């Protein structure tokens, strides 16, 4: 099922929401987390609505608004969101207030906005969109699940336009808790993430939305050919599944011009990805992206935005290149492993 990308919006730790040249001046952080470089939200959201929104809601609503604007669409037929953590900040506020106030006189706003589906709901409320509205919270497959649902919806009714996105935020509490697991490195220059051979990665966040349709428009340049998720596959299963995934889209490894690989810099898992890149894609250009956005469960949404931008603009930013085989980029594979457990594949093609 070919799905066409009509518009995109992305708020990430990089400058991804204005007209500047794609990642020509990557933002450099000296930290153990990469937080979003955010726009002035009053450009996208009515200030009266804005006052009640937490940061992740603003990020999601603004990214959705950007995607709709690019697609020239005022109201989509449906809104599908993937988020692993949901609205963490308001969840934290609500839980803290429960303790502080001894479970009495709790403020309604953080409670109302602590649910995972607040982001998709807020977009629908602002747009008065009464169509299909779904939020997927499948850990590191949340965005892929949203994408698969969108593609299935479009298979049934290709003329629809759906707003599909992935959103997750870092809060100080969530970062402190996750850091205890030893999954993040000490503060470092994010652009050096792949230079040092250490355990751990950098925490990340972002919000990316896409307007998708099953019908090709005159201005469409990128389409999604296939999406697949694999949970804790064995090495041989993973290798087999990659080949069968490509075969289902009538492609061979050699047809892939660019692989955007979700290496996180964590040496515990990096060698597995290297094996795949060497075994199947020796002729392809290889790009990396997690030094730009950090590691988080919906990082695939950032990768989809980046891959689609590379094809759309026919431009491969130097900050992404890991190995350049100088191929014109028509077919692009996103391979995103998340802490060695969740592996996803998204195949893009120029159209």
């Amino acid at each position, binding site marked *: 099922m070919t799905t066409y990308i009509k518009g995109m919006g992305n708020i990430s730790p990089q400058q991804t929401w204005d007209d500047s040249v794609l990642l020509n001046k990557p933002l450099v952080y000296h930290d153990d987390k990469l937080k979003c470089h955010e726009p002035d939200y009053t450009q996208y959201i009515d200030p*009266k609505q804005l*006052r*009640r929104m937490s940061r992740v809601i603003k990020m999601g609503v603004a990214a959705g608004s950007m995607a709709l604007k690019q697609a020239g669409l005022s109201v989509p037929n449906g809104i599908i969101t993937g988020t692993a953590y949901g609205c963490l900040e308001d969840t934290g506020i609500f839980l803290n207030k429960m303790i502080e*106030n001894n479970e009495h*006189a*709790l*403020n*309604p706003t953080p409670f*109302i906005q602590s649910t995972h589906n607040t982001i998709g709901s807020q977009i629908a409320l602002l747009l008065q969109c009464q169509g299909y509205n779904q939020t997927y919270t499948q850990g590191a497959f949340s965005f892929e699940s949203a994408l698969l649902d969108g593609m299935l919806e479009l298979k049934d009714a290709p003329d629809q336009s759906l707003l599909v996105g992935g959103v997750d935020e870092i809060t100080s509490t969530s970062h402190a808790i996750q850091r205890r697991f030893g999954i993040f490195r000490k503060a470092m220059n994010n652009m050096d993430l792949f230079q040092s051979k250490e355990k751990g990665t950098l925490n990340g966040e972002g919000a990316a939305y896409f307007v998708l349709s099953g019908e090709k428009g005159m201005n469409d340049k990128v389409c999604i050919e296939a999406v697949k998720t694999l949970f804790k596959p064995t090495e041989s299963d993973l290798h087999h599944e990659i080949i069968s995934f490509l075969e289902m889209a009538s492609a061979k490894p050699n047809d892939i011009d660019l692989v955007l690989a979700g290496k996180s810099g964590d040496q515990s898992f990096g060698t597995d990805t290297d094996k795949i890149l060497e075994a199947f894609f020796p002729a392809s250009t290889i790009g990396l992206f997690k030094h730009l956005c950090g590691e988080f469960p919906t990082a695939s949404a950032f990768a989809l935005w980046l891959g689609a931008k590379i094809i759309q603009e026919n431009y491969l930013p130097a900050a992404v290149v890991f190995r350049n085989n100088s191929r014109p980029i028509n077919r692009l594979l996103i391979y995103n492993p998340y802490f060695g457990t969740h592996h996803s594949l998204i195949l893009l093609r120029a159209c």
Partner: protein
Amino acid sequence: MEQLIADLKRQIIEALNLKHLKPEDIGDDQPLFVDGLGLDSIDALELIVLLQQHYNIKLANPQDGPQIFKSVKSIAEYITANQPK
């Protein structure tokens, strides 16, 4: 009463995150909902919680809400009449 009204304006701005307003921007008799400050039903719930948290007043009859929350002055009058001694 003047001090209570000033306190209420500050508390309302903080509780409802009305960052674009200063206390002096809110008139004592200015309607809070719809045409006035443009507050909505979620804000009404926040105001009920504000009365509980800051003044230890539980709204006995929710039907009285529209009258009590008409303006800052009407809230101050309700607090003065109902605050536990």
